[in-house]
């Protein structure tokens, strides 16, 4: 299974959500499907996408927040899984694409390669009740539908191939993304 397939399956569902992605391939693959104002791409600060998601979810209970994370980033903020578990926002879905690789920085194996480290087990051990580990598009789709209907904090660890897009680049400066994302969030808030 490829991450781009999963993101494409998810894409129609993202229009009315707030979406935070990590750097590199995940951000690019989402952007390439068509940027929307409710997407925030964290192009650095590895590990903090889930923390941004937590800050959004706790302060905007009426929104559904989706974080598109990766194994390398999650490994940099394992404590963040425990913080998610402790505050358990009902409106947060944390998707971790596990390609076992630090793909965006040269393709070195990550600690999850060859099953050494099990991120789903770590998420469960951190105290997150609803954790799905999937490795086929059908299972990913099912897990995503279940999570979005669940009304509780959910984590999906999706095992994907270590491949990314051929070209990288966005017509979107980083502060511009932040300003527009904030404006979008505020407009949605005002419209409620």
């Amino acid at each position, binding site marked *: 299974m490829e991450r781009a397939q999963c993101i494409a399956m998810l894409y129609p569902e993202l229009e009315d959500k*707030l979406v935070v992605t990590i750097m590199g391939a995940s951000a690019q693959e989402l952007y390439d499907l068509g940027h929307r104002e409710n997407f*925030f791409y*964290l*192009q*650095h*600060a*590895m*590990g*903090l*996408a*889930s*923390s*941004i*998601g*937590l*800050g*959004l*979810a*706790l*302060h*905007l209970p009426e929104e559904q927040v989706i974080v598109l994370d990766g194994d390398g980033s999650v490994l940099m*903020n394992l*404590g*963040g899984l*425990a*913080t998610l578990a*402790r*505050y358990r926002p009902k409106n947060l879905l944390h998707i971790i694409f596990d390609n076992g690789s630090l793909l965006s920085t040269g393709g070195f194996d990550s600690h999850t390669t060859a099953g050494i480290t099990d991120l789903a087990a770590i998420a469960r051990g951190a105290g997150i009740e609803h954790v799905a580990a999937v490795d086929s598009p059908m299972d990913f789709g099912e897990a995503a539908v279940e999570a979005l209907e669940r009304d509780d904090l959910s984590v999906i660890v999706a095992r994907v191939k270590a491949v990314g897009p051929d070209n990288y680049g966005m017509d979107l400066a*980083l*502060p511009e*993304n*932040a*300003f527009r*994302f*904030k404006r979008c*969030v*505020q407009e949605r*808030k005002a419209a409620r």
Partner: protein
Amino acid sequence: MTVSYDNSKTIFEGIKAAGITSISALPETWLGLLLQRAEDDPDMQLIQVAKEEEAVGIAAGAYFAGEPHILLMQNHGMFGALNGIVSLAQLYGIPLCMLIAVRGHWGEPYPWHTRGGIVTEGILQALSIPFEHARDPEKVGKQIQEAWIFSQSSLSPVALLLTRDLMED
């Protein structure tokens, strides 16, 4: 030396008066009484983190959400949050209002705090993070409000340094 009950109360009242409704923090000794008040206040959301860098992400989420939010941490915690401060807050223009307990400076009896205390101001200067010292309980409320206002207008991290004079009796 004990943590000042009265000044912890004054600081919390200053935070409330500045309109802050949400705090992310990692508990440390000087901040204990302050965070207890935050936890007991039904109108204040306290989010305890496992490591201070998470608080930078949470603060960004709160900023996007339009929730008045500050960070409370020790100076050593700020060191652990530096990449988030630089590569999220400064890179994207996201305000951070940080109240930082400065351990390891004038009068510090504990050797393990000293190196961090000595380098704190230099690190803040190197990162162009504006800072002020809070020493006087009469002034700290106004300083909190000013730190908050400046973080929002500059879209930048700012630091109010909580000193021994203020935090200990």
